[in-house]
């Protein structure tokens, strides 16, 4: 049996929706005397008992309508958010592509940003030196690498971000709807790279609204609605089911 790389068991995640948010000590102080200005907290469950397993070398898609908890799920797997209940086990290093180019600072050049961004993942200087050329080459930004990224276009920004994440060579890649920005040629390049990544036995979790891509690329898929896994199975079939609107809604 292949090794399970990601194991999510009965995962629940709640957030507080804070009405009348008391953001300052001053407001907090006033609310002591004026009940109407007291903060009200409402619990919102973004994930309700999610189970998910991903084996090594698998590419798994996560689909579902907006607000169904897809991004929250990725963030918990990435270790950015803590589970409220349940457990998440990840065996390996994770490169979260939740939003591309997050560590970029507009005033720094492309080169400086590569170093800053890669060090955010704990790489040492030598390790970054080693991947630097490949990152630049993959991004295709050789001519702009010493320009501050505030002068980059959205597409260039995305290229650099994707190039860094892919060259970090982590065990697990979490991709959240990022391919939408690049032009077609770069998109193809990214998909080819992800394919190659997979062939080398790496694991990919792919959140997307591009359903054709999911059914084409992924082995399996999960359909998430209102924080619950509604359907799990062969990617093509899950996508087809979602397409036809045959969503077996579970009622609590």
């Amino acid at each position, binding site marked *: 049996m292949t090794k399970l790389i990601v194991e999510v068991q009965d995962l629940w995640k709640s*957030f*507080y929706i804070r009405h009348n948010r008391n*953001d*300052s*000590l*001053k407001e*907090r102080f006033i609310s002591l005397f004026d009940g109407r200005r007291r903060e009200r907290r409402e619990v919102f469950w973004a994930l309700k008992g999610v189970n998910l397993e991903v084996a090594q070398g698998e590419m798994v898609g996560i689909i579902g309508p907006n607000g169904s908890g897809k991004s929250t799920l990725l963030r918990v797997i*990435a*270790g*950015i*958010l*803590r589970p409220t209940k349940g457990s998440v086990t990840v065996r390996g290093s*994770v490169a*979260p592509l*939740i*939003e591309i180019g*997050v*560590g970029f*600072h507009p*005033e*720094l050049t492309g080169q*400086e940003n590569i*170093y*800053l961004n890669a*060090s*955010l*993942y*704990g*790489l*040492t*200087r030598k390790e*970054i030196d080693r991947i630097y050329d490949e990152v630049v080459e993959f991004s295709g930004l050789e001519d702009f690498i010493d320009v501050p990224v505030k002068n980059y276009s959205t597409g260039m920004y995305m290229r650099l971000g994707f190039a860094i994440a892919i060259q970090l060579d982590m065990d697990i890649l979490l991709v959240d709807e990022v391919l939408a920005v690049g032009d077609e040629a770069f998109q193809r390049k990214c998909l080819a790279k992800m394919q190659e990544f997979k062939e080398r036995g790496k694991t990919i979790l792919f959140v997307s609204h591009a359903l054709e891509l999911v059914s084409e690329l992924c082995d399996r898929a999960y359909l998430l609605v209102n924080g619950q896994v509604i359907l799990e199975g062969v990617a093509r079939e899950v996508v087809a089911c979602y397409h036809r609107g045959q969503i077996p809604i579970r009622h609590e």
Partner: protein
Amino acid sequence: MGSWMRGLTRIIRYRELVRNLVAKDLKVKYRGSVLGLLWSLLNPLAMIVVYSLAFQYILRIPLENYPLFLITGIIPWNFFSGAVIASSEAIIGNANLLKKVKFPLEILPFATILFNFVQLLFALLVFFPAVFWFKTGVTPLILLYLPVLALQFLFTLGVAFFLSSITPRYRDVRHLTEVALMVLFWLTPIIYSISMVPGKLQPLIKANPLTAFITVYQDIIYWGRLPSTEMLISMVLWTGLSLGVGYSLFRRRQRVFVEEL
């Protein structure tokens, strides 16, 4: 104790991130200005000139080589106040990073303090020759300077942990900090010496942690005498307290940072 060691190893493992964050702050602050880092000297220089004028020539404070006295206190004070103000932004200013990537969050306040420390070292480089210019002589006590500076770094780090972990919840802490710093400045013997403080006020001034650090610096550099045991102990205790309270609060609060930002 285990969590302290883990915190320390995380900082060591992510040293490249620390380095890049400090470099980023330096570049962002000083790139595109001809004078670069020299700008960071403008503030202490202006303070020294203006205070010399007001207190030496107008109020006639009875301290010899008054500018040297000022330099001794103002440079470490500026490090403290600059670092403290910046640290309140250490977490909320990097919200976009910690919402997207998992990394040890201790790095953020640490890098902020280090950035301010680099500016302090630069200021020392320029102002230190003043000690020779005033011909007050340098005693072997000067060797104590670096350990005391290191202690002040740790003390400030503790304050930074504390402040950076409450600002995500209460955004107005920053304004309170500015007011508190202003009060603290006048309650610290920087422009006056501790011996000039009337007996009744002494306990108030001595209850201020910065008093310990500043008077020790003055003893070492300006007076050329051995610092009092009272101040040395006070300095160590404050550092322990600040780091202990600051870091444990930070570790407890960091779970919820992402959700508060």
